[in-house]
């Protein structure tokens, strides 16, 4: 057991008399730009597509291939220190001409800053971006969910599989705009597919290999599972 931890304060890199206040009167566009934009433009020429400030939040659009190095720099650089990954998500617009955007929300706790990074993926290519799991462990489940809902592959993720829907879910990727609200199959078909899943009786390969549990099963069950049958009640 460790001893007591030293308190880490948000805003520790700022002067002590800089208490934040509730923002008022934020303009739609324009306003103060996050200093990361200028610093990124200097350190990674050619990686930045565009910078926008919408409702007081800076959005930096980065070339998808350069995301990982940009993120690593944002995490490590002593003037940026974006140590908190808030969210990774994706946006697909109703306008088919616009690309699918993958959005990262970063916070720098020492500097009390918020930054949004986007990567625009054209629709006619497979959707994939680098995973930032190697930098922030919180990306683990968040990227799995983004994959589950949009079908975006996160290259370098240790275990990219569905998390909210069941792993053999066949209807597609629910948050895509071409996926209808009530699903592609009829209600009885959806229910039938769900009921034959029997997820409790099904363990993943990882889980079954853990405890060598296959040995402990009764003989007839071993035979039936070996032949691919799903166990019933």
């Amino acid at each position, binding site marked *: 057991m*460790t001893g*007591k*931890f*030293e*308190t*880490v*304060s*948000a805003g520790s890199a700022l002067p002590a008399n800089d208490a*934040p*206040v*509730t923002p*008022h*009167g*934020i303009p*739609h566009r324009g306003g103060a730009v996050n200093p990361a934009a200028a610093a990124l433009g200097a350190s990674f020429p050619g990686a930045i597509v565009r910078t926008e400030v*919408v*409702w007081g*939040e800076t959005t930096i659009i980065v070339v998808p291939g350069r995301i990982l190095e940009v993120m690593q720099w944002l995490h490590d650089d002593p003037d940026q220190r974006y*140590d*908190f990954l*808030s*969210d990774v*998500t994706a*946006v*697909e617009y*109703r306008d088919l001409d616009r690309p699918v955007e993958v959005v990262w*929300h970063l916070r720098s*706790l020492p500097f*009390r800053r*918020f930054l949004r990074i986007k990567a625009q993926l054209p629709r006619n290519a497979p959707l994939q971006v680098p995973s930032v799991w190697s930098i*922030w*462990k*919180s990306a683990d*489940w*968040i990227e799995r969910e983004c994959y589950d809902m949009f*079908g975006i592959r996160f290259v370098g993720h*240790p*275990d990219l*599989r569905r*998390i909210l*829907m*069941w792993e*053999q*879910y*066949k209807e*597609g990727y629910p*948050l895509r705009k071409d996926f209808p*609200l009530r699903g592609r199959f009829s209600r009885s078909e959806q229910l039938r597919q769900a009921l034959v899943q029997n997820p409790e009786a099904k*363990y993943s*390969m*990882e*889980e079954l*290999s*853990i*405890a*060598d549990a*296959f040995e402990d099963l009764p003989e007839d069950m071993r035979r039936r*599972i*070996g032949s*691919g049958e799903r166990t019933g009640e």
Partner: protein
Amino acid sequence: MASGTRTIEVELSTTGLDAHGKPQRRPLVTNDGGSAFEIGAPDSMEPELSGDHMLINIGPQHPATHGVLRLVLELDGETVVRCIPHIGYLHCGFEKIGEYRQYNQIIPWTDREDYLNSIGNNVAFALGAERLFGIEITERCIVLRVIAAELSRIISHLVWLGTTCIDIGAFTPFLWAFQERENVYNLLESWVGARLTTSATRVGGMAADIPAGWMDGLRQFIRTFPVTVDEIDRMLTRNAIWVGRTIGLGVMSPEEAINWGLSGPMLRASGVAYDVRKDFPYLEYETYDFDVPIGTNGDVYDRFLVRMEELRQSVRILQQAADRLPEGPVNIDDPRIILPPKSKATSEMESMIHHFKQVMEGPRPPAGEAYVAVESPKGEKGYYMVSDGTSKPVRWRIRPPSFVNLAAIPKMVEGHLLSDVIAINASIDIVMGEIDR
């Protein structure tokens, strides 16, 4: 019904037996076309078999998992070697539905996703939508929303307290906590008409102003609630059983906690002083005088202490808010966004047109995007909304604090006993509605 036979070629995930006589399984997933492809097995899947390890499945239906969470544990005797959580058993398509509803119509959905913090979620969503619309709300609305958010924090922490006590074995605080919740439910019901699913805010204001005499009820609650907190405190905080069952469990260091994206009491118990109300303020929280409790050990006991102290601090904020509530209108004065009163909508033509447009089409924000984060009882709760200028959002994303907090559970329970898993799980304060959405 067609007759005759068809041959269908299907990719099997078992490809016979390997050298040891065990079935060889390949993990397969299907793409949208329905064809299966194999995903490479990660290196971490190599089994480490040191002795006989047991595979235990907890959930998804289980009293102590706080909802439909499934934990698969690899046990070496009673000690957990590995934990694999499975979620998604309460996935109800909130974010998809958000794309098919107007902004005011989404508010009932925010009630139901983190259902312990309903009115707090209403406030958070309204703040996000107002950022997207570019609206400044009235002074009275700001203070009422602070009152709502803090009441919500109190009732959420009381549920956490009651259910954690039951999990660890103490039944009585559950009854005390739920009795106090009934007092808050009475207040909420007299304000907005519902106990749990309040739908109390609207874009630009609130669904209703507080009724006459409501503030007396709130002051009565402020007076009597700390007595119950003290009672629970006396029973638990220095209780040998409670301390023995919670000290030293599930420790996360500050750096790990930040890297794993923990927020809220989980993060603060690990010694990180980050509270969205203090660091990225909203609703003029910087003008209130309150403390944020920070732990130092990062274990279950510290999380308990942090939440107990947050209950007291919430009462402090409520007292200040009750004292400063200004008179004035609750809703902004924009007929394109706030519904006109029914008396005008049925008598004046212009109001009737406004009413019609708002109900049938809904108010339209300019194209843009906004991410507003609040300090929910569970952590940093954010709503990210993207608008293309129409009355329904293009994307409504909920940043769920419990989802990110729960992802750290495999790290926290390694090396602990089975009964500790339940205590650690309880200390995260998860709500499956928010995790699975």
